[in-house]
């Protein structure tokens, strides 16, 4: 095809729209404020995106399986509070596995409701968003949680340490992304997730145990949330009950931005990582421009809408359909 037709250009635009918009965005921000494109700033974006990014990795599994997870924000608050509390009660060595265990139980509960009882994931996880928040408040008695001896613990290594000059959160994010990416794209389990999300009935008719697959996706999501909570707790060594509040939407924005379809059956870990970075740079750009951080809330929503729109536009090959 030597010459591109108008329609083909349209399709390319729609498919790569997010990347193109991102490139324009980067250029505008760099011109507006040269600080934007410095190594220091780039590094700080990736570091501040790591916690969100780790949660997005797990949610990618859930979304590909054709479900949603809106509980990750309040679940992350839960993990953070629990691990901080247990740190002083049991010591870090026992606190960490105990917190992982408790968070995984929450994930298993959601996985049971959505996978085995086949309840709608939007309702289940929206409810869990609220229920886990209540659980966290009950656990903490509404108090902020702080580690007593902030200087004398090795617990800070996950949030504040570094190896080879790279901050720990980034290493954990990229390491987890690599492992989960391989699981999703290379293993039979990963293939089954795509099948279940693409057509659950046909997957069942091919002998795939759908409930088990969905259950496992929520466990993975909970594992990622626990990891994110660990880093969050380790970074600040103290936390409010609401530390993860609102993150479920940002996480979802990053996943959709990466191109996973909310209908299930498509998306990759690599694309989610890209989505996380794009979101991080946009939020950072806005801050550098001097806008208040709460503008982010509006921007996150705009990005979700834009991403969903472009996804649909790419599928039908034009920006709007005449058959509305």
């Amino acid at each position, binding site marked *: 095809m030597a010459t591109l037709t108008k329609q083909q250009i349209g399709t390319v635009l729609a498919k790569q729209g997010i990347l193109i918009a991102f490139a324009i965005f980067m250029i505008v921000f760099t011109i507006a404020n040269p600080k934007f494109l410095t190594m220091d700033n780039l590094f700080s974006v990736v570091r501040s995106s790591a916690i969100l990014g780790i949660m997005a990795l797990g949610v990618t599994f859930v979304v590909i399986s054709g479900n949603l997870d809106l509980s990750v924000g309040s679940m992350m608050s839960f993990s953070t509070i629990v691990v901080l509390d247990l740190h002083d009660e049991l010591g870090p060595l026992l606190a960490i596995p105990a917190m992982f265990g408790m968070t995984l139980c929450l994930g298993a509960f959601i996985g049971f409701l959505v996978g085995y009882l086949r309840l709608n994931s939007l309702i289940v996880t929206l409810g869990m968003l609220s229920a886990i928040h209540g659980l966290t408040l009950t656990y903490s008695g509404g108090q902020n949680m702080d580690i007593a001896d902030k200087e004398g613990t090795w617990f800070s290594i996950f949030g504040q340490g570094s190896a080879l000059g790279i901050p720990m959160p980034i290493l954990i994010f990229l390491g987890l992304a690599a492992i989960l990416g*391989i699981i999703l794209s*290379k*293993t*039979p389990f990963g*293939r*089954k997730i*795509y*099948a279940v999300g*693409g*057509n659950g*009935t*046909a*997957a*069942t*008719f*091919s*002998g*795939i*145990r759908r409930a088990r697959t969905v259950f496992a996706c929520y466990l993975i999501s909970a594992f990622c949330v626990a990891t994110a909570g660990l880093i969050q707790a380790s970074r600040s060594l103290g936390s409010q009950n609401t530390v993860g509040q609102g993150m479920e939407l940002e996480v979802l924005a990053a996943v959709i931005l990466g191109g996973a379809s909310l209908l299930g*059956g*498509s998306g990759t870990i690599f694309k989610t990582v890209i989505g996380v970075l794009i979101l991080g740079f946009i939020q950072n750009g806005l801050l550098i421009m001097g806008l208040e951080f709460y503008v982010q809330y509006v921007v996150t929503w705009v990005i979700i809408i834009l991403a969903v729109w472009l996804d649909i536009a790419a599928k039908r090959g034009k920006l709007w359909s*005449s*058959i509305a």
Partner: protein
Amino acid sequence: MTGKTPVLRLENIVKTFPGVRALDGVSLSILPGEVHALMGENGAGKSTLMKVLGGIHQPNEGQIIVAEEPTVMSGPLDAKAKGIVFIHQELSLAEELSVAENIYLGELPRKSFGRVDWTTLAEKTNAILKKLNVGFDAGTRVGDLSIANQQMVEIARALTVDAKAVIFDEPTASLTDAEKVVLFEVIADLQSQGVGIAYISHRMEEIFKITDRISVLRDGQYQGTLNTAETNEEGVTQMMIGRKLDLSRNVSHHELGDVALEVRGLSCGDLYSDVSFEVRRGEVVGFYGLVGAGRTEIAETLFGLRDPSAGTILIDGQEVKIHSPYDAIERGISLVPEDRKGQGLVLGMNCRDNMTLPQVDDLKAGPFVSDGAEIAIFDQYRDKLDIRTPGWKQTVGNLSGGNQQKIVIGKWLSMHPNVLIVDEPTRGIDVGSKAEIHNLLRDLAAQGYAVIVISSEMPEVLHVADRIVAMYSGRVMRTFTSEEVTEENLIAAISGLGGDQAA
């Protein structure tokens, strides 16, 4: 009929998609007052041609000419405005609305303040319904109508505009014989009013009953147009598939093996009761009966989708309990389901991944899925089943019905099942692929597979089955061997007449 100006003419239409030349220089003309059949195997380009005509796709080359005026169709509404109307196989009616509302949807007559003028609406609608001579009126809720009558509503909708050409896409797919007669009367009526009719169907008998001319497509290319009166089924089939078709009765001559599957007194609520039969390796057992006779439900039970209320299932003489498709597959029972797109395939996945899906756990190199093993299986069954696809990366949703069905069959064959159950093996599949699939099923039996074929097409069961289990209302009426069976005694058995109780 020569000398008339065609109501609709297509000239040298070319439509390409990435990697595929879906239409390759198709020309066609529809004269006023004729019924013009459009035939071709699945994947021959009929649907694409209709989409070009309806403005859903724009052709890369060629022209659409309506009443001698070259036209560009911008969409289905535009096509309708230009007098080209489609009656689709899948109906698009709002079930909760009345007949009148459906017919005039979007253009309801109005009174002041935008209120609907119900009186005029009813009058206009009843006038059209009278022309169609149907037994319902403007106020009937569409959801209460039979499929056939719903189709009449679609036709009525077509008649609200000054239709020059009406295109029927497989209109009789879900109609009973009596309903077909009414449809054909309506078509004859339209014909006498000078409307040109394009008629897409796989059913030869209808084609020869009602059409004047037959145009054939093959692999996106126009093969020619025949006068119906001057040709026969064989001629058309040959044109469609480019070779001769053997439709003779198959009878197996190979030795039968052990009993692979035995079912004793199986019951499932009031869906079916006390069903017993056995299937040996090397034979095809056909299940024949009317819709609702319980055939599909038996298959679903064997495949673990329904739990039986009584009875036993034995595989190789061992009693087994099957509670899920996973269990069934473990025991070597495979099901090619009736609803290919909904149950058989993940349409958004590629060909290879669909084919290897049930055994993906066993195709490992270390902890990972082995690309090489998967491609080897795909290649083997693509060649064996003659699946036509540009490559394994092709998304299954882009294949024709026949090729999709072969992917589903390949999916199970590659696992060497003890029992292969095929529910409606050729539903929505064209003549050429149909014969291929029939031969394939026979070959499988010859290779020692135990095969169950469920079908609502009598020629199909007669053609492929060594024994036929006739069902009526959830019961096995009689089991025929291929020597005993005749069309007459089979019909008698499935209608609940005569027939000895279970053999």
